[in-house]
């Protein structure tokens, strides 16, 4: 079974957990890191990644290519990414349907784009440029959005067309589906009706928080600061029933808990995945 069709449950790795991860790795099937945190020349970060990669598959997640931006992905950054992917070969490399750079300025955020023809033409070219420069297929992740740009129902079709046009795979972030759909007043199941499940090669799960606005409405914030919510886990089970087994990553990037809490979260997701896949098989 190839990795992209496996029921592996993985964890976004944090350096403070290195010793725990090495001595208690049974809970984790694969590790994911952000590419931009491993572009230094040497030292401890690469030593840790090498040690993890000797024991488990790695996936690498980029946050800086700005594929949705007005300018083509930065050639220098692409060269550095290519070197990283050669140094620590991952099973999968993913990026976002978003932008984060404009001209000389980068912001550490994933900004929304309009899902129109002009954006499509641009993003499709940028994905081609990146896939050629990196010499591999990219997975593109559905973003979490807050503003009335990036309307979710158009997004699922936009991603489907990108997959058809560029051959890229998709990373389905189920938490982002819940967050974006809530923020735009769209039913998450309606969103998924438009989603090309056959192109999904990886799934992300994470926690989100809620903020009450002045008019009493609630905004969902994709802050990766807690356990995956029950609503996200329920939708994940429905997704798995459609996709079949897919490597699933738990992202916990803020208020990062101690290793035992993460191990328990991995076990919780594994149980949900096993149940969903068993039920789908029986049906």
């Amino acid at each position, binding site marked *: 079974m190839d990795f992209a069709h496996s029921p592996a449950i993985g964890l976004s790795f944090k350096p403070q957990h290195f010793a725990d991860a090495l001595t208690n790795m049974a809970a984790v099937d694969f590790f994911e890191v952000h590419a*931009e*945190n491993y*572009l*230094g*020349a*040497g*030292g*401890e*970060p*690469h*030593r840790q990644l090498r040690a993890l990669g000797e024991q488990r598959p790695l996936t690498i997640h980029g*946050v*800086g*290519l*700005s594929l949705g*931006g*007005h300018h083509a992905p*930065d050639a220098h*950054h692409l060269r*550095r990414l290519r070197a990283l992917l050669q140094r620590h070969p991952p099973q999968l490399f993913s990026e976002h349907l978003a*932008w*984060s*750079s*404009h*001209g*000389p*300025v*980068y*912001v*550490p*955020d994933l*900004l929304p*784009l*309009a899902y129109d023809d002009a954006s499509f033409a641009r993003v499709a070219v940028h994905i081609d440029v990146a896939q050629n420069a990196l010499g591999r297929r990219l997975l593109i992740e559905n973003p979490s959005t*807050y*503003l*009335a*740009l990036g309307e979710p129902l158009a997004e699922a079709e936009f991603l489907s067309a990108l997959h058809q046009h560029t051959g890229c795979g998709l990373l389905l972030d189920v938490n982002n589906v819940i967050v974006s759909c809530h*923020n735009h007043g769209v039913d998450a199941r309606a969103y998924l009706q438009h989603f090309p499940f056959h192109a999904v090669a990886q799934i992300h799960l994470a926690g989100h928080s809620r*903020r009450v*606005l*002045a*008019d009493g*409405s609630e*905004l969902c*914030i994709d802050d990766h600061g807690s356990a995956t919510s029950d609503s996200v886990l329920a939708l994940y089970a429905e997704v798995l029933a459609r996709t079949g087994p897919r490597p699933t990553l738990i992202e916990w990037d803020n208020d990062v808990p101690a290793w035992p809490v993460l191990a328990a979260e991995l076990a919780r997701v594994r149980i949900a995945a096993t149940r969903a896949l068993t039920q789908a098989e029986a049906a």
Partner: protein
Amino acid sequence: MNAMRSAEFIAAQLDADAPSLTGFALGANTAARFAVHRHTCRSGLINALRTAYPSVVTAVGDAYFDALAAEFIQASPPSSPVLQEYSPAFPDFVGHFPPLAEWPWLSDVARIDWARREAFHAADADALSAAHLQSWPVETLMRASLGLHPSLYTLTSSNPAWSLWHCLQSSGQSLAEDGWRAESLQVWRIENGVHMRLLRAGDVTLRRGLADGLTLVDALQAACTLDLGFEASAALATLIGDGLIVAVTHHAQ
């Protein structure tokens, strides 16, 4: 969103005092929704600077640092998504920040923080052992150029930057009355640990000479000329003991 709008969007994100997005037809609660993006961007950059400059955070306090960083991120936002490289320009900004004019040493403390960051991420290289180096005839070694470890950074300060940096690591410790003098130091990595050593002027000259490609004998000579108390054999032993020599390049006579 067209290109001009993208630039406006980012500018409004970086500036907490700017009004929220104007001229964007983005539906109800645009300001509150845009605030999520502004917070993500600003807290991400301020946290990047806090992580890079922990001694400056200790020196000025959390609230002051955040205000200082907020000024900096607007003046010098990053151009690269590699935030561990953001930003070598901060020490100069601190040095020229008018409200900190009374603390002229702070920018040098910031440079130590940055050198430690650089050393942490520098390329790996195996040090040549004393035994290996001693296997060369002295004359041959003297006429060779020595490659230094990629993690080595030398800093010179007209202030006691090394002592002040150490005071900031142990809260409450203050500098002795007679401790105010210029200091030079090296920052480097052994295995995965970043270390620091106080240097005399001749040590700095030796390291910089070797880094510039001088032969060992020429670099030692330059150090002796500049620093009358410089002891070549002790300085060389330190260089070797610190694991700083990683290559020997012989030159044709």
